[in-house]
């Protein structure tokens, strides 16, 4: 059994760090892990996807199309973009924020958060919509959105990685002064799923 997760968002949102933290936590729990990401070009603003695979034995890091158990979307359009990766009845956790690409095609498409969420809901029933920006803003740091989403993924039934290890990995990766706030964000994120 291998758990396949797609982290999807926009360059600059912290996809690489969040997926690193998840892998570190999986390692602490004794799992084999493999992860694929691409660095370079478009430091900010382009689509970014990280593939994370956790299990007893993982042969290679890339997830096959239609075989992802979970999509963790940091932005709605990027979550929708990777929907073909999702297996039948897979789970989507999505930060309910739409950032319009600055292309004329995007401007004329007239997309909204609701429209894109509609596309996601049409693909699977298991959708957790998380107001990551709202929660992070309430906590006083918009950059904690990542940790909110990690909290949410920690609470879904498919997840193999313990919240304790995730908290430990978060504490290990961040600067001391941000740890407390992020652990709060993590708890808030996990509640979003419990409530949903």
């Amino acid at each position: 059994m291998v758990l396949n997760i797609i982290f999807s968002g926009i360059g600059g949102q912290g996809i690489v760090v969040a997926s690193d933290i998840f892998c570190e936590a999986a390692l602490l729990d004794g799992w084999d892990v493999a992860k694929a990401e691409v660095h370079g070009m478009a430091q900010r603003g382009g689509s970014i996807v990280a593939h994370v695979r956790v299990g007893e034995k993982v042969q290679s890091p890339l997830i096959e199309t239609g075989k992802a158990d979970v999509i963790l979307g940091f932005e709605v359009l990027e979550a929708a973009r990777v929907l073909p990766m999702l297996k039948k009845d897979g789970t989507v956790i999505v930060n309910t924020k739409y950032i319009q690409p600055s292309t004329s095609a995007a401007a004329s498409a007239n997309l909204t958060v609701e429209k894109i969420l509609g596309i996601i809901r049409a693909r699977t029933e298991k959708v957790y919509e998380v107001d990551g920006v709202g929660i992070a803003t309430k906590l006083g740091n918009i950059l904690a959105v990542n940790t909110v989403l990690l909290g949410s993924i920690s609470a879904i039934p498919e997840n193999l990685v313990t919240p304790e290890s995730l908290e430990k990995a978060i504490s290990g990766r961040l600067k001391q002064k941000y740890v407390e706030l992020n652990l709060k964000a993590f708890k808030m994120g996990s509640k979003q799923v419990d409530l949903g």
Partner: protein
Amino acid sequence: MNAKIAVDKPNSFLLLNGDEAVARGAVEAGVNVATAYPGTPSTEILETIAEAAKTFGIYAEWSINEIVAMEVAAGASMAGVRSIVSMKHVGLNVAADAAMTLAYTGVKGGMVIAVCDDPAMHSSQNEQDTRYFSLHSDIPLLDAGNPQEAMDMTREAFKISERLQLPVIVRLTTRVAHGKGRVRIKNIADSCRDAEFDKDASRWVMVPSNAIKRHAVLKEKLKKAKQLVNQSEFNVVEDNGSDIGIVGSGIGYYYARSVLDETKFSWLKLGFVYPFPKEVFEKFASKVKKIIVVEELKPYIESNIKFLHPDIMGKASTKLSDVGEFTPDVVRDAFVDLGYCKKTELHAELDLPSRPPMLCPGCPHRAFYYALNTVNQFIDCNPKKCNGCVVCEYVCSMEKEATFNPVKSRIRAVRLDTISNMALVCRVCEDAPCVSACPKDALRQSSKGRTIVVDEEKCNGCGWCIEACEYGAITLHPETLKALVCDTCDGDPVCIQWCPESALSLKGSSEDKIVTGDIGCYTLGFMAPVNTVQSCLCMGAGISQAAGMIHAGVKDKVFAVIGDSTFFHGGMPGLLNIAYNKSNVCVVILDNSTVAMTGHQPTPGSGKNALGEQTKIIELADVARSMGIEKVEIVDPYDVDVTREVIKEIMDYRGPSVIISRRPCPLLVKKGPRRQVLEQCNACGVCVEQFGCPAISLTSERAEIDPTLCYGCGVCEKICPFDAIRSM
């Protein structure tokens, strides 16, 4: 610095990507000297070693390019210590001159050349298969398929190198280099070696009489290498008693193991692939009836085995193509085609707007490109918005002639009503035909912006200029009979301010210049809406391509844009060449004081070295002047107006020149005050459709700035024609 790989717990696990694993392998092997030039996906090798350098007494440097890096590492090895040099595949082309002959001299201390290929070109300009460089140079090669192999192979490569007295290549591909995995580490060897150079001219001086002997020595070493490959722990057979054998190397092999039922096939994983492990293969081949080769890019294994077994399937007979990278999807598709696994049920593709990579918000390159694009501006009319109301004609006549009289306007609205409406105005042509048509020499073009200046004393109202103008942009004053031409109100046209439909805007003229590009973030300036960069070949090529066009006789002004690090890497010979050959090229060095694209490594101009220590700042302007460039200008691209003036001046300059566009990468400095859009915004689109900042989006009513994306550079505020953008 937090040295991730400096863990002294043998047999424990670390989460490492392939690059970090190579770094750990080198440290475990007791490497003494590490060099590199940054290049995706190889950058993190040297970066990771540098983090641990002080802990382990390693000398690590960012060299100015790959051949220098190769030579420094070779020198260290000649002095008897272990060295590693890392680069991306195209970097090996730069270093090839040194590497080819290094195979002849051989090495003394173990020397590893870590090369990262980039199948599918995630961040490269071509797909090369470095296994063929080994075939070309006779340098042994190990091909890693995951981070664990990358670490183990690197450690082992130092031993192989010392045994054979040859450099050894460890090859990674992007998915290995930037794929993370669980890596079991080993203990770190003590690296105390005294450096000593054995002065043996017959070995190190490659004049023909010595080199011919060393070529024969190289062939002898290869015989020994052939024994090593056939005993190597990296060439692994898994005999499951199947009739079908799968042979592969690199990550493609592991994709095959992921998508197939592993027990139904026999497997041969090749890791030490040059020289080719023929005996290992023959033993494996004797037990299977059919062989399928799974290898990314070129058919290297396939070409080595094609006469060794009667039934081999590879590039031509499967869907495992030699273009692009393998993915589990590609490999599954190929094996579904052969009937060895099941097709995955797929959802329909979604049609969503793409989010391509682009220059970041606040990027100084975008500001420079905007200034370059908007040199020689003219008033452009969007016929979709223009309703032919002629307000522009009234305000123009008021501004210029102090009367509301459309006949005295320098802009003319043309009403075709249901078909189209638009306003006609001077386009500031290069070598304007109206000027040469004037029999009285009454017209000339200003050097500032090329607008047409009419000498009213000379103009006799003959109207030849009107006939010469393709755009119908010249009229005669009804009373004085002197020619009337738009002068863009000195860059701030009143017609644009008053157009009720926002149909008018200032537009640059892209037809009058050629802009060659180079390798770096700024290459993204080729994309819409910036559309500035017109070429990208290899590191440093832009300057010399520009020179070639000039000497071929192109009429347009040629600019060559190049980043500061790329300039130090490969641009300096090109600059010297245009100074020497008097080429009329303007080289624009986009100086953001960092190698931004690969993750902000220091450059010779940044005053920091790989270890984070202070070092001499190499001033680009001094370099340019010392190479014989007489015209050198430094501008701040955020100051668009001044930048544009400097570019205008250079447009008329004849001879080699340099503009240094200097502004640090915004990702490295504190953000400025964020900007917001005010009420008076009328969605004219300059900030989105011409400037193209990704933090700004446009609706039909107005522009909006996303506060989470805005870097506060303030350039949008400066270029907004309606003063509709302000600090928050």
